[in-house]
């Protein structure tokens, strides 16, 4: 489903490669944790999948299509097929929980009726049904991240990219977020999680790709966090 074909990324001339000769295949429905120190190239890998940056060498495929050859319209379709969650949540402070999630659906052109039906449903899934009218500043960090996850999955994407989603959370909230990601994966969504949180990776118990200085140094089907 996702295939990195011998990918190298150098941000500017003379810089060491952020990602170097990475070849990686991810099947539909997989839950892949990409681990490594800061600067190991985890986020660069995700950004290339999202077409935010292009590889310097090699190619990234989503399905049959090479991402860098997609037209503007196809790129929008790609982005709608991929949900993203970030370490800093990126919620809109002036909108309440309902509006934050509805915004993503509005942009995707969903009808008002669909939005009214889908938002409570997805909030149920992340366990925040009772906070639907709260504003982000009224929520804890863990709750804000759950809203961000709800926003990422409400459009029913094929893939969920979670870039350090537990980076700003305490262990209990981090555990809750991982449990939600696992539940989403159980429902059929492919999940790519980058983290350097050992307990998070160990609790997932699925495939672990370990990166170091831009290279994949370990790829285990049921891995642990080992650096």
């Amino acid at each position, binding site marked *: 489903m996702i295939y990195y074909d011998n990918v190298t990324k150098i941000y500017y001339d003379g810089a060491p490669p952020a990602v170097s000769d990475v070849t990686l295949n991810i099947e539909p429905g997989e839950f892949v944790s990409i681990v490594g120190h800061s600067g190991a190239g985890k986020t660069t890998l995700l950004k290339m999948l999202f077409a935010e940056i292009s590889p310097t060498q090699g190619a990234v495929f989503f399905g049959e299509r090479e991402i860098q050859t997609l037209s503007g319209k196809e790129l*929008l379709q*790609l*982005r709608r097929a991929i949900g993203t969650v970030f370490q800093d949540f990126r919620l*809109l402070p002036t909108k309440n929980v309902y509006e934050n999630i509805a915004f993503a659906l509005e*942009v995707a*052109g969903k009808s008002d009726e669909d939005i009214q039906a889908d938002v409570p449903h997805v909030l149920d899934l992340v366990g925040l049904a009772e906070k639907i009218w709260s504003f982000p500043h009224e929520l804890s960090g863990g709750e804000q991240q759950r809203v961000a996850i709800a926003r990422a999955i409400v*459009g029913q994407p094929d893939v969920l990219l979670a870039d350090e989603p537990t980076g700003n959370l305490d262990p209990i909230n981090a555990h809750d977020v991982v449990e939600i990601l696992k539940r989403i994966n159980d429902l059929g969504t492919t999940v790519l999680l980058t983290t350097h949180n050992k307990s998070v990776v160990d609790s997932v118990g699925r495939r672990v790709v370990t990166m170091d200085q831009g290279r994949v140094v370990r790829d285990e089907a049921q891995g642990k966090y080992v650096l």
Partner: protein
Amino acid sequence: MNLWLNIKRVARYGLVGFIRNGFVSLAAILIMTITLFVVALLLIAGAALSSVLATLTDQVDVTVYFTPAATMDQINQIQQQLSALPQVATTTYISRDQALAAFQARHAGDQLTMQALQELGDNPLGAALEVRAKDTSQYATIAKYLENVQGAGPGTAIDTVNYQQNQAAISRLSNIINTSRALGLAIALFLAVSTLLITFNTIRLAIYTARDEIGIMNVVGAGRWYVRGPFIVAGVLYGLISGLVVLIVLYPLTLSFGAGSQAFFGTFNVFTYFTANFLLFFFTIFACGIGLGALSSYLAVRRYLKM
């Protein structure tokens, strides 16, 4: 995807952004209002000056004054000669009695003149011929012709030929009109560029304010015009509001200057002109406002909204 639904949402985001940037928007609206107001003044001034010119042009003629002793035969000969000229449109004969009646009517309130006239007893005025040319530029030729015939044959009956005064006034007014039009256009152009720059910067600020929304829109795969559209809508709103303000202000303003303008210009009433040509004002002002707003927003969005 439902196009109408998207248009509605883009318009709503534009409106929300416009309200959120209220104070910054005010600057853009203010400068645009001034610009549109100047555009409206240009329309009015152009029409007023043209009307004055038309009135004056209409009043231009060559008048041939005959001596009181001139015979009807001499006058007829001159009239026939003039009518035969290709430049002449009409000739109107004014008899001595008509000239006297017109003189009396003109000086009805002037006791001294009327008394002097009465003391003369006889009609001191001669008959006259009013000559109209087909084109104002041809009066010089006609006047020259009359000067040539003066003093020989039936021309001896001619007392004076009146032509020069009006012509000088007309050419001066034409010059004033051309200069004021050029000056007005230059001012309008200068203001339009200022408007463009201020609105451009306003939209730039609005883009900065909305950077979080824009980021999320990009992440969730919003189309290019879904992200850009609201800023164009905001620019168009500046134009609409400014245009509305100008049209609303123009009504009482032209009303209060209506009578004064008529007294000043003669036939031109600024209020009558505004109401009679309301559609012209409506379309010109809104077209300029919306055009300026949309263009500035488009330029700002292209420059600052990288996707």
